[in-house]
């Protein structure tokens, strides 16, 4: 096979790291370059869930594929990655949401994803800290969580062992036509350039649209056994779907450390990374409605992050519309940890001219051009 001499990956978040591992494993000579330290962007601020989602067939396909890839990898993950197959509990507060539980159950079952419907009492048994009564829940036992910075560190380490090089603290000024120009003037040549720069990706590849969507998270001190599953309200589907209004939803995770991670909020247009007290208060109040005991737990830290969001909520994976030597791997919004491994597989297949395991069309960046043309 005639392999390209070198791939330069811009961005050492989890997507860039996954691409580095995958491409290095295929024998390509890989260089990863990041303006800061690995996982200091959205990856470092992320919750770290590996979840199957069904907003669309394309979202399902990539999340499911990626989850299987994570499961294949889990035996190799060091303890610091904190892989925890805790499963997800999608809780329904009313009959309308219970109908959603049934729909989701059927959808998953038809596609081979293990899931079970819990009634009110079973929800209480599964998560005694949830307020009673809740109407029911969908348990998806195959979902898991990881600690994203260490998952990224693991992928980069594997890539390094396979010969990849990682450079950090060097901002990239421009990419295209087979070259990467750094802010310090250095020019690197590469057969393929991967733009995995998260929310900064549009600055390097014109013609793609990624908007930052701000989120807040709270982490508590260690309370082992307080929580067993990742728990998400199904009302999340109502609130998280809004593309304009600020929203909050109940979403908690048990961490391997015994800590509880409390989310979530979504804000468009917020540029400032400072903690927004009113949305933080709303987010916590929402969490207390579902899990009243959370209010007495000691909160250690609050932070914000920016999800790199695309208008159709699907990542951009494939050739840049303006320069086919650049492959975009960005715009994963809140699912970057889940979908990083599948993204790497799709990028790798495109570079090597192989047939990918799932159709790549829904994720091609060129779709944004088409959508724009229709407006």
């Amino acid at each position, binding site marked *: 096979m005639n392999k390209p001499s070198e791939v330069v990956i811009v961005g050492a978040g989890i997507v860039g790291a996954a691409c580095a591992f995958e491409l290095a494993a295929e024998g390509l000579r890989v260089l990863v370059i990041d303006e800061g330290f690995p996982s200091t962007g959205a990856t470092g601020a992320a919750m770290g869930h590996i979840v199957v989602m069904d907003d669309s067939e394309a979202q399902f396909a990539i999340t499911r594929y990626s989850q299987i890839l994570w499961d294949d990898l889990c035996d190799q993950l060091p303890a610091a990655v904190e892989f925890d197959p805790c499963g997800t509990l999608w809780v329904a507060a009313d009959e309308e949401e219970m109908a959603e539980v049934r729909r989701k159950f059927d959808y998953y079952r038809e596609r081979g994803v293990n899931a079970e419907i819990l009634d009110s009492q079973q929800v209480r048994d599964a998560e005694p800290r949830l307020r009673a009564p809740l109407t029911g829940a969908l348990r998806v036992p195959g979902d898991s969580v990881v600690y994203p910075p260490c998952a990224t560190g693991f992928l980069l380490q594997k890539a390094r062992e396979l010969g990849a090089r990682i450079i950090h603290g060097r901002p990239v000024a421009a990419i295209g036509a087979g070259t990467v120009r750094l802010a310090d003037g250095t020019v690197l040549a590469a057969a393929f350039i991967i733009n995995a720069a998260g929310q900064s990706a549009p600055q390097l590849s014109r013609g793609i649209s990624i908007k930052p969507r701000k989120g807040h998270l709270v982490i508590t*001190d*260690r*309370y082992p056994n307080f929580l067993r599953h990742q728990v998400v309200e199904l009302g999340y589907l109502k609130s998280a779907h809004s593309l304009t209004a600020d929203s909050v939803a109940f979403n908690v995770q048990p961490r391997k*450390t015994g800590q509880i991670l409390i989310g979530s909020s979504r804000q468009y247009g917020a540029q400032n990374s400072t903690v927004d007290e009113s949305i933080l208060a709303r987010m916590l109040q929402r969490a207390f409605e579902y899990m009243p005991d959370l209010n*007495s737990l*000691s909160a250690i830290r609050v932070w914000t992050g920016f999800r790199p969001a695309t208008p159709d909520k699907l990542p951009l994976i494939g050739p840049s519309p303006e320069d086919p030597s650049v492959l975009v791997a960005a715009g994963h919004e809140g699912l970057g940890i889940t979908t990083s491994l599948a993204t790497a597989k799709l990028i790798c297949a495109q570079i090597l001219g192989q047939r990918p395991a799932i159709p790549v069309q829904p994720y091609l960046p060129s779709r944004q051009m088409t959508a724009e043309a229709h407006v």
Partner: protein
Amino acid sequence: MSESVSVRVNGKPVTVRAGATVAVAVLASGATCRTSVTGQPRSPLCGMGTCFECRVAINGEPQRRSCQVLCEANMEIEANG
């Protein structure tokens, strides 16, 4: 200052002078305050509420800084050092 307070540390009665902190009662009982995340016994470092090494459960409430809480009669203190 002859007044004293009696509390229980891991079930064992301990008497300290009035106004003494829970950290003092824990040390007086011979216990250590907490077990670190890798299993080491720990006791107070800073004595002023900053280091969080003195955390114990007080009347069932975990993760309290014992150096910042005064002993009250019949407090149940659980020190997991």
